[in-house]
């Protein structure tokens, strides 16, 4: 599904990712953990194609295609989704309108017709209920005045409505209360299957109790330092990142 080879990334001439290699096969859930500032969000942005993140070496392959030079909206239409660590506010644009615009933009890019207004509303109703989102939120400007937890729920609502093939969740668990964490994890687990893959960035073992990862990676100093099974997350929770920080 996603193949990253020897990726070097600079921001304003400063190298943040320094030869990162990572592969997430179809149907698998991988977790990335790592100290603050190690480059986790940078990785998620560069995979999504954000401007200003310059790939100086290496490549990103998504579903057999080299996407290193693609625009973000083209990557999204291919089925790539990023749940933001800090979701962005868009005043005056209702969440409903935003979602409908996004869904139809992706469909158009794939050569499909617009979703019918009835089907859209049905889908939106089903997903909001499933995620315990109050309908009032859909009428407000995207993320405007939302609490930290509400913003994260809104990310998961978008995730489940856009139904991507591959999703990166950048600290989607931070800011969620226990109940919301469970609901969100259920949402993700419901999407999980042989066709979809996830890359879950988190600081806490707790999320991984609900979303069981197949593989856990440790990112530090702009590189994957270690890869293991779910037990690696437990080990990190106990010992912290000291050994990786000192490694460089």
């Amino acid at each position, binding site marked *: 599904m996603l193949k990253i080879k020897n990726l070097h990334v600079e921001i304003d001439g400063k190298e943040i990712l320094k030869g990162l290699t990572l592969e997430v096969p179809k149907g698998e859930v991988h977790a990335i953990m790592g100290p603050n500032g190690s480059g986790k969000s940078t990785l998620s942005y560069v995979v*999504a194609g954000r401007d200003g993140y310059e790939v100086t070496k290496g490549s990103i392959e998504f579903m057999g295609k080299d996407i290193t030079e693609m*625009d973000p909206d083209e990557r999204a239409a291919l089925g790539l989704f990023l749940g933001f660590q800090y979701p*962005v506010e868009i005043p005056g644009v209702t969440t409903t309108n935003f979602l409908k615009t996004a869904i139809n933009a992706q469909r158009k890019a794939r050569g499909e017709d617009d979703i019918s207004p009835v089907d859209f509303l049905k889908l939106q109703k089903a997903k909001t209920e499933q995620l315990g989102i109050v309908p009032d939120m859909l009428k407000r400007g995207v993320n405007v005045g939302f609490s930290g937890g509400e913003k994260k729920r809104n990310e998961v609502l*978008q995730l489940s409505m856009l139904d991507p093939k591959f999703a990166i969740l950048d600290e989607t668990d931070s800011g969620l209360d226990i109940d919301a964490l469970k609901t969100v994890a259920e949402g993700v687990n419901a999407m999980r299957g042989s066709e979809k893959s996830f890359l879950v960035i988190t600081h806490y073992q707790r999320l991984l109790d609900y979303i069981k990862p197949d593989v856990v990676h440790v990112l530090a100093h702009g590189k994957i330092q270690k890869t293991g099974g779910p037990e690696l997350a437990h080990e990190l929770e106990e010992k912290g990142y000291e050994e990786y920080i000192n490694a460089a």
Partner: protein
Amino acid sequence: MSNRFAQETLDTVKNLEKYDAGFVTDIEMEKAPKGLNEDIIRFISAKKKEPEWLLEERLKAYKHWQDMPEPNWAKLKIDPIDYNDAYYYAAPKRDEDKPETLDDVDPKILETYEKLGIPLKEQEILAGVKTRKVAVDAVFDSVSVATTFREELKKAGVVFCSISEAVQEYPDMVKKYLGSVVPMTDNKHACLNAAVFTDGTFVYIPKGVRCPMELSTYFRINEANTGQFERTLIIADEGSYVSYLEGCTAPMRDENQLHAAVVELIALDDAEIKYSTVQNWYPGDENGKGGIYNFVTKRGICKGKNSKISWTQVETGSAITWKYPSCILAGENSVGEFYSVAITNNYQQADTGTKMIHLGKNTKSRIIAKGISAGKSDSTYRGLVRISPKAVGARNYTQCDSLLIGDQCGAHTVPYIENKNMSAVVEHEATTSKISEDQLFYCQQRGISEEDAVALIVNGFCREVMQHLPMEFAVEAQKLVGISLEGSVG
């Protein structure tokens, strides 16, 4: 990220096509000789078989105009206008003795309006999916070429016709109200209009009548080197209601063309007039060549108690916009509103706003102005709120928000407040913001292209204004927002 060169080529091609109202209709025209003088004014008046008093008024205005200075207080750079280098009368040729009905309108003209998305055939509108009807007065260069649904409106007592016809059919009303809200001496552009206006729309809504459909006028400049000087007069009698909308387009040309209109609204006791504009005159090319000079004087008077006048404007076109739709709040408890979106891109300039003149007791006004500047353009909100000593309990709320796209454009807010009554409450709020990289990337990550993201974000910014547009036009206006900002990012 993507191949810059290929993208530039694509953008250039796209720019060529983006003003899709920019075509020219090839049609035989009747024109007055070029230039401005008394003979031309007599020619126009004779063409319209006007009564003597109106010709006198025109000549008086012309005399006055010659001595008037150009208004110079706006923050606009305007090349001097050569008033003698234009045609002041241009009309599609027709057989003068034949009464004109919809069926007689030149098919080329019908086609023009069809291309612009404005059907002039009533049966087509009826057969269409729209459930609510919209009556249209179509003004082509100097004259009104067709007015739809007149019979049906007549049954309700509503008069909807060209101003030329009104002069013939309702001379008393025209004489009483024409120039009563905007006197010819108001400013140089209005004065010129009083001298050379060629057509426009007249509306009268009788007592207690709620106009059964939306009324609209569609202005089209087609001829080269012509100015368009239309005159609109709307009278809402006691307890009546009308919603009126105007739209405007012009072909793409290298020369600047002058559009100097005057609009006067009169609302009597308990009457309400809702006046909406979607202005999409040709803005000039991306280097600032060509485009319309839109110098327009619009003013309404809330003459009666509890009356209301509401202006909504979406200004996306024109090389230069100079326009301040205003309300004189004379009647007790009367209400004036101004909702505005002004978008400038490339080298466009806009100096626009409103005047709310509070004369009566407990009068209220509300101003929401949204300015969006992109490219190398410049946009100014200029507003006056005047509370006279007698306006006990008057209230005003003003909110001006500017949105900047890129770092080569300008946005300015110039509020004037003159409060002569201690009991009045005047509030003013202003903000300036930018479309952030974060917002663009967030939209793009969800699959929305950069240009669509700009349109979406800007439409969100304008929402409070857009929702005051009649439903039928809101969707069009939203699309226009996107089109007028094409090429502003990336």
